[in-house]
């Protein structure tokens, strides 16, 4: 028995901002959920189950917040699950929701991922005193910057590739009304001249800290076929995890990343990745991860990914493999939602619903997320054709 074909029929996002002081946590989630329901032409009554994801509970100081959010998500009397796979969680959550439909356990599922970092202190949450170790790095930037330095050394990439990625994503974000950062006057030189935080990472090459939520409605084949509106069909979903510390681990292109990519492309029947994929929404919280993931995902040879950045291949205008037309994580980072935003933006692209950030003729797109010490991966491929 094959899996049920599964369709995305609704996508909803909130405006991302450093502080969404106008809404509670429940209000934030409802904003995204309502928009997804509206796009799907559905009401809460059509939803059989909810799958929610977010990053650590310490980010808001609420333990297992799905407990408190049950009513806000229309779940009373229904099933709700809560996924947490570090930074990849938004993607994993969508994949778990997809499995609910693919398995025929449920017909229609609402999946939602979020973070409201302004309600607590994310830096505090990430650096709770660890009594047995010495703390020498400031958050994720401190952890990931040596990996990027390693990549720069192995690839001999020009020093300003990272700045080019950051500038491109910030330009892309201007076409996305939901994006946190809308830096209309930003120039490339300003990116280059922004202060070094964790050398080689500059301030402008890092992601902001955002509040926000993203929701999607997934449904079965019959309802997808009957849907009076745009549909994105899920062609493949994959997750892989590995230890973040073992001898011989390739941290620039982790085995888990490569295996996850192999799995999802195989499910979607894709052979020439660069040719057959029309748009990529990739998890790039620090600029240099774009060329690194281009290689790890097999869009470029090892050590060559930076050339795609340099020659403009990943830009929406003129590129053959546009990456992060939404502005990406570099323009909006509601941590727990960031992975789902990638998946949702990929869906919007193949639905032809990406507004000013739409890639012309986009029929197949990849959503990508990673987390932990670059050890958790979640990916999906969506297409406009069943």
């Amino acid at each position, binding site marked *: 028995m094959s899996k049920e074909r599964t369709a995305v029929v609704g996508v909803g996002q909130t405006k991302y901002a450093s502080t969404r002081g106008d809404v509670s946590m429940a209000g934030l989630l409802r904003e995204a959920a309502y928009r997804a329901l509206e796009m799907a032409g559905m009401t809460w009554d059509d939803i059989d189950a909810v799958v929610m994801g977010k990053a650590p509970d310490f980010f808001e100081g609420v333990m297992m917040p799905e407990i408190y959010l*049950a009513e806000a998500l229309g779940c009373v009397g*229904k099933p709700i699950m*809560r*996924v947490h796979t570090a930074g990849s969680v938004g993607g994993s959550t969508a994949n778990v929701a997809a499995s*609910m439909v693919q398995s025929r356990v449920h017909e229609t599922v609402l999946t939602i991922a979020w973070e409201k970092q302004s309600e607590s202190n994310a830096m505090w949450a990430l650096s709770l005193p660890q009594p047995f170790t010495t703390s020498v790095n400031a958050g994720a930037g401190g952890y990931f910057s040596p990996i990027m330095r390693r990549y720069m050394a192995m690839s001999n990439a020009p020093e300003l590739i990272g700045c080019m990625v950051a500038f491109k994503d910030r330009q892309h974000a201007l076409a996305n009304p939901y994006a946190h950062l809308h830096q209309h006057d930003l120039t490339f030189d300003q990116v280059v001249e922004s202060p070094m935080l964790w050398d080689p990472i500059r301030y402008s090459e890092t992601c902001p800290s955002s509040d926000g939520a993203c929701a999607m409605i997934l449904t079965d084949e019959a309802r997808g076929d009957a849907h009076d509106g745009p549909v994105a069909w899920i062609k493949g979903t994959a997750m892989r*995890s590995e230890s973040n510390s*073992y001898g011989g681990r390739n941290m620039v292109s982790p*085995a888990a990343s490569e*295996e996850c990519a192999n799995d999802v492309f195989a499910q979607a029947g894709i052979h020439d990745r660069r040719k057959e994929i029309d748009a990529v929404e990739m998890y790039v919280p620090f600029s240099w991860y774009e060329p690194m993931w281009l290689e790890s995902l097999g869009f470029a040879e090892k050590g060559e990914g930076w050339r795609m950045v340099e020659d403009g291949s990943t830009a929406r205008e003129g590129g053959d493999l546009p990456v992060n037309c939404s502005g990406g994580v570099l323009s909006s980072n509601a941590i727990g939602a960031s992975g789902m935003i990638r998946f949702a933006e990929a869906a919007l692209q193949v639905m032809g619903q990406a507004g000013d950030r739409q890639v012309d003729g986009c029929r197949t797109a990849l959503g990508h997320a990673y987390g932990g010490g670059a050890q958790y991966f979640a990916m999906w491929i969506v297409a406009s054709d069943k």
Partner: protein
Amino acid sequence: MREIAIVSFAQRQEPAITSESEVEFMVPLMQQAKEAVGLRQQDMGFTCSGSSDFLAGQAFSFVMTIDGTGPVPPISESHVEQDGAWALYEAWVKLQCGDVDTAFVYSYGKSSPGSLRDVLATQMDPYYVAPLWPDAFSIEGLAARMLLESGKVSERQLAEIASRSREHASSNPHAVRNTPKSVEEILAEEFVADPLRPSDIPASADGGCAMVLAAGDRARELCDRPVWIRGIDHRIDSHTLGARDLTDAMSARIAAEKAGVGRDKIDFAELHAPFTTSEAVLTEALGLGDDVTINPSGGPLAAHTMMAAGHIRFGEAFERIARGDGDRAVVHATAGPVLQQNMVAVLEGE
């Protein structure tokens, strides 16, 4: 629906595990569950776990524990910030998709480093309720008062539940509260959160468990008597305590009906009932008659490992059925204050 079975299980529960980290005490359990059916990590089609950062007092705490599975080469894996029963559910769904035949599920919790009754207060509505720091025992005390006032159950009946749990637990090596106590002795205890006495509240433990699931004939290859998950469902109720009937468990009723509890005779039930009051409410909500043995393991009154307690109910029922002590069982897991979220499953021997 594919036939899915539990084929192996290992657990450990102790009052406080202070000499080993979470991953250190989980590795032997993980190995034990895999070795019992001759599988290695690479043989698992999917892996899923359940745990909580708030128990560990650290963000991303599960990242340390995944090392115990031996995730090199990488594994297809997921994690829920929920009781392991929901990790089992996610794995069950994955198996239903049909592309994998085996799954590894584990869960753990170490609540001894903090004060669990206070930690659980952070589960409450963060704007209106949590700032009042209502601890878990006080909230259950409110519900217990309503239950007693409703006349559905008496203090003596609660004491009988507590006494029976201790009696059952005397033969459970994993129980941490297993000394016999009579109903009269329990009724003479000082209140913790009036009307709840020490014997009415869960016996907090540190620990965890590991389990292998398999589908169809693969399950039959792996063990002599697979224990089949005949039905499984979970539901959540309103979080607002004032908005629901705390003397009932609406979401457990729905889950029990969907899981098919009433379809055939039930031999015993393993209920994730942290309080005597929870057991009284659940027995009624699940429609379990007098002929059903409730919590032969002693249940969470005998050992309550937060984030694994629901999952362990599946394991306890598996072991009992696998060795022939009963053929059909109801299993239940819960989360949230006063039985807000409930999972119900029916397990049956081959």
